[in-house]
């Protein structure tokens, strides 16, 4: 009986695709920045273009303004990118960035990457989360 539980536990662990969470907003803490990201509307509608709001503060809690970055991303486990090409469209308040054109076409673990347009910049952060039937429909 014990073997059975061990095998089941191992199988479950092996089949766990990711440690990402479906909780929104996604919070990314780095040595330089605290990034908070969430869709402007919830739930996320599968296969529909929508926008995200990204707050970027420094570690002292001060908003980081004037950043310019491009958006990439995708599903690492499936080896494909985002189905659209989202763009940074606005910074309505200091440190608050709006990206539009985001679409997810399947459930699972997604990444949205923020990459500074300056090639010499080290600004490259990944927002990872699980799109599931709780946060999306």
């Amino acid at each position, binding site marked *: 009986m014990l073997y059975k539980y061990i095998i089941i536990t191992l199988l479950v662990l092996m*089949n766990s695709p990711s440690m990402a969470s479906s909780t929104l907003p996604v919070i990314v803490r780095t040595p330089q920045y605290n990034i908070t990201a969430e869709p402007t509307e919830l739930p996320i509608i*599968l*296969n529909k*273009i929508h926008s995200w709001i990204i707050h970027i503060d420094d570690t002292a809690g001060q908003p980081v303004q004037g950043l310019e970055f491009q958006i990439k991303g995708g599903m690492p486990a*499936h080896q494909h990118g*985002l189905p659209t*090409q989202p763009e940074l469209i606005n910074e309505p308040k200091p440190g608050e960035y709006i990206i*539009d054109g985001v679409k997810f076409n399947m459930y699972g673990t997604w990444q949205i990457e923020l990459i500074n347009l300056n090639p010499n910049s080290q600004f490259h952060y990944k927002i990872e989360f699980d799109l599931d039937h709780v946060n999306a429909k």
Partner: protein
Amino acid sequence: MLTLNKVMVIISSAITVLLIYFITYNSAPVITIWTQEELAILRSLRLPSKWKTSDPSNNYLIKPQAALLGKLLFSDTQLSRYQQIACASCHQPEHYFTLAANSDISLDKQVPTLLGVASFNWFMLDGSADSLWAQALIPLENQIEHGGTRTQYVQYVLNRYPQLYQAAFGSLPALLMNTILPEQASPTSQYVDEQKNWQRLGTQIQTEINRVYANIGKSLAAYQATLWPRDTRFDRYIDQVTASSRPPDISGKPLLSADEIAGLKLFISEQGQCIRCHNGALFSNGDFHVTTVPMPHLSAQKGRLAGVEYALKDPFNCLGYYSDSESAQCKELIFIKRSSSELKGATKVPSLRNIADTAPYMHAGQFSTLTEVLHYYNRAATPFGTHSDLAPLKLLPYQLNQLEVFLLTLSEENIDEPTR
């Protein structure tokens, strides 16, 4: 010793037979308990009680007069250049708006069903149209389909259906009504003299012809926006398991068999992978993916990679002059993904509704049976150096059988009334 050998042989044979039986015919245990996560997935696959459609580029999408004109044009063979075919010749209403395998007409690509088509964002197998009305115009000027030109269609519709056109789109275009137009003229005609005819018309008349031509597309789209799939045994099973907290074996006999339920379980599982692309009530995400299926159709060789460029240049796209939308509403075009290797060979994910009754399969009908399709996905060999969105399923034969019997539950019992 000899006897011992015989016993060993008999035991080995028995084990082999049992293994083969288990692998081939193993019947899964009856699964009647669904997790909350699984129930949420099942609800997302059920047909909605009411469909919501919108297309900001088509103000006439839900206008009944436009839909009526579109319905008449859809079945009107007189519209085509040689008065022999109509949209309904290939999108056969009695066959879920697809082309029956035993039809007199043969095409080198699959005809997708139109049931539910209005809920998609992109059209054609390579996504070369960003609206249903822009898509409707493509076969009209395709030389192997309707084969005519926009000038021919505009004159035909204004002469044959003037009252209906007015009811749907307002007054008749005075400039066109008072001008003698060439019988055939289009910038995309297969014939040089018809292209020259177009050039001679001048910008003002060209614009008026294009406007009426766009309206023809919009009326065909309005009709297609009335075509929706109907509930199947699968949908009723979803009602059965989601309506009550009690398991179905208490509230009544399950509407799906044990194997069908096991197939459904596989379909929505990470192992089955099906729901990655075949999600939502139409069992399609409406997007484009690479299956590297052998012998791709010419338009599938580049697939979405070329379709994107076509859609961006199309004068009848969402950002074009004949669109009814504000530019900001054209997000699918504005945020379109271009020039990615992932797009090469990517084709549109078809709906799986009524799939058992709409053979053959894949975009060019490469497979005759669902069994062949599932075996292909089970192996999913990817040519070296090619992007593929498939990973081998590695399912056992009995699991493939379960998936197949589940897919049969997506068929409507009868198709007397395909619309609602």
